[in-house]
């Protein structure tokens, strides 16, 4: 228990730091802004109580807001991602259900499962985030393009990090 709190605390800090120091500085042509920090919500244990999940994702978003000076934007997007996670997990559940005390990782459930799971949550998060950022529906399709391109890169980075974790 204590061990896992410590571990997720470390993941939390590492993801925020890498987002602020690295991924927020990536920019190709203004369309691609990967937000890899959302991976924290993906990694939390499957049996985590949902109130804790909600509070953690809200805190995650709030800290990102502090760093990017955009009150409420990241908080509401990642809170939404945390809220839909149980439903996504139910939607993509493997035939024999989830193993007890497991984490939703690529190592346990395979690349294909992890990809679908990541895709759904990242899409929800990025859609909310980018439309909240622009806060208007003119240029609807351009924002949609930003959502799709940025989600693609976020997912690529998340999968790469997962492969690295598996390699260790």
């Amino acid at each position, binding site marked *: 228990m204590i061990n896992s709190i410590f571990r997720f605390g470390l993941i939390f800090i590492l993801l925020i730091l890498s987002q*602020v*120091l690295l991924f*927020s500085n*990536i*920019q190709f*042509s*203004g*369309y691609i*802004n990967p937000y890899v920090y959302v991976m924290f919500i993906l990694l939390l244990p499957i049996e985590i109580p*949902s*109130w804790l999940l*909600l*509070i953690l994702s*809200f805190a995650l*978003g709030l800290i990102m*807001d*502090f*760093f*990017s*000076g*955009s*009150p*409420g*934007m990241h*908080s*509401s997007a990642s*809170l*939404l991602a945390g*809220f839909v996670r*149980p439903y996504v997990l139910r939607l993509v559940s493997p035939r024999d259900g989830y193993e007890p005390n497991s984490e939703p990782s690529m190592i346990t459930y395979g690349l294909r499962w992890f990809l679908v799971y990541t895709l759904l949550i990242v899409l929800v998060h990025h859609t909310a985030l980018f439309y*909240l*950022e*622009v806060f208007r529906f003119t*240029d609807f399709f*351009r924002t949609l393009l930003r959502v799709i391109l940025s989600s693609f890169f976020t997912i690529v980075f998340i999968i790469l990090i997962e492969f690295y974790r598996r390699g260790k």
Partner: protein
Amino acid sequence: MRSLLNFLARYNNLIIFLILEGIAVYLLATGNTYHNSRFVNGIRGVTRGIEEKINNTRTYLSLRDINDALAGQNVALKNKMETMVKKENPLFFSYTDTIYKQQYLHSSAEVINNAVNRQKNYFTIDKGSLQGIQVDMAVVSDNSVAGKIVGCSENYSVAMSLLNLDFKLSVRIKTNGTFGSLSWDGRNYRQAILGEIPQHIIVNVGDTIETTGYSAIFPEGIMVGTVSDFEKTGGDFYKISILLKTDFRKLHYVDIIGNMKKTEQLDLEKLFK
């Protein structure tokens, strides 16, 4: 009572979600421009250390570029001084006279936090109200437009970058003086859009775009960029793309310009609105 408890137990996730989302939306709704800058300033204490570290590293890595720019600026200033002293131009008098006719106050500052990859970009500078910075002062980088101050704390100020969907600037084409309105379309951090130029005006690629001074924020004649592309759309106006002179990814040192006669101009104009 029991059914109420059942209801709460059943939907507790939804309730927590709605409460937290309410807080987030409240932050978002009150977080526009002015509040945003206050929020950012208030929270600076938390993130200042890390941001200053990042900024120090970045400044160090680009010292060579900054040196070159400063040397270039020095040469240009020396040349200017030379010609001015020799000509004894009476215009020079009115521009530098500190007692009678000075209109613009200059001050320099360092950018300590900057973003270019959002739709509404802001940057933070290391001077605030204690150093005389006020809201609605112009921010200029190497004699080209960078943004305007939207909020000040005691030692820091937040400026709305030109790369912000809400930023509008009155500019003109230097060769023929036609004025239009410059805005950013959120696509490319090197390009902005110039609108309201009628199609009978002759526009060439490479034409210089500069500020008009109508807004009482920016002085007249500060360069914005050059025309990189233009097309005739269906309406009466051109759609002109401007290559910005300021590279916002390399924004380090900026000048703040305050207009001492701004209130006078605005008060007078208010009478006729």
